[in-house]
């Protein structure tokens, strides 16, 4: 469900398995039509074919098993989106994250951001991902080859 806030649109979705369709959310057309956004950026995260273990060895994997804790995961993603949208003056945020198994090479995370200028969106994406890895209850467990 889209969640509207003054001057910022935030949408969060959890997807069972890989994210197969990299489709622009409807707000992209809206913000472009309104001519308020000069930048629409999309970041897509894909599963690598290896994981670095605690003892610093690289281990080949088949993919990653993602776990979430609902509704807390969606709530924290929404909160993080809102906080950083306000901080960076971003106009709209769309987050998709997988749960369940995602094989090597497949997409598990998509973050789309619209802002007046590219700098805000670039800063938002970098900071959002860094904070998500620290604060949002999402876990990944490698499925070994």
């Amino acid at each position, binding site marked *: 469900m889209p969640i509207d806030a003054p001057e910022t649109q935030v949408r969060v979705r959890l997807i069972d398995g890989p994210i197969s369709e990299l489709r622009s959310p409807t707000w992209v057309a809206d913000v472009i039509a309104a001519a308020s956004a000069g930048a629409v950026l999309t970041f897509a*995260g894909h599963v690598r074919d290896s994981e670095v273990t605690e003892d610093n060895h690289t281990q080949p994997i088949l993919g990653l098993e993602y*776990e979430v*804790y609902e*509704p*807390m995961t969606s*709530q924290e993603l929404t909160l993080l989106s809102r906080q950083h949208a306000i901080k960076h003056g971003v106009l709209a945020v769309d987050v998709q*994250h997988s749960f369940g198994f995602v094989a090597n090479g497949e997409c*598990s*995370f998509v973050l789309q951001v619209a802002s007046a200028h590219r700098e805000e969106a670039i800063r938002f994406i970098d900071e959002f*991902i860094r904070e*998500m*890895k*620290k*604060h*949002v*209850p*999402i*876990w*990944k*467990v490698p499925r070994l080859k």
Partner: protein
Amino acid sequence: MVSTSPVNQQSNMELQVLVFGPQARMVGTDRLTLKELRLPTAANEVLSRIGGTYPELAGSLSVSRLAVNQEFVDATALINTGDEVALIGLISGG
């Protein structure tokens, strides 16, 4: 929100704590059981009891937090009977 009221104080209660991801694999379950707790008890006491009961988790507790009823709580928050408690550690989204 977590209540700070002394009501529901009970001795020798069993508290279950949800656990996920790599930490769940370490202990072979998705539910930790802490026995003989006096409730309400502070979140830091629960973390300490988890470390004592499940030594496999001791190394990851410094990067873990507790959530109570699906909200992060600080170390002094009180946990009461009927609260849903979860250990949130070793997270890695993206």
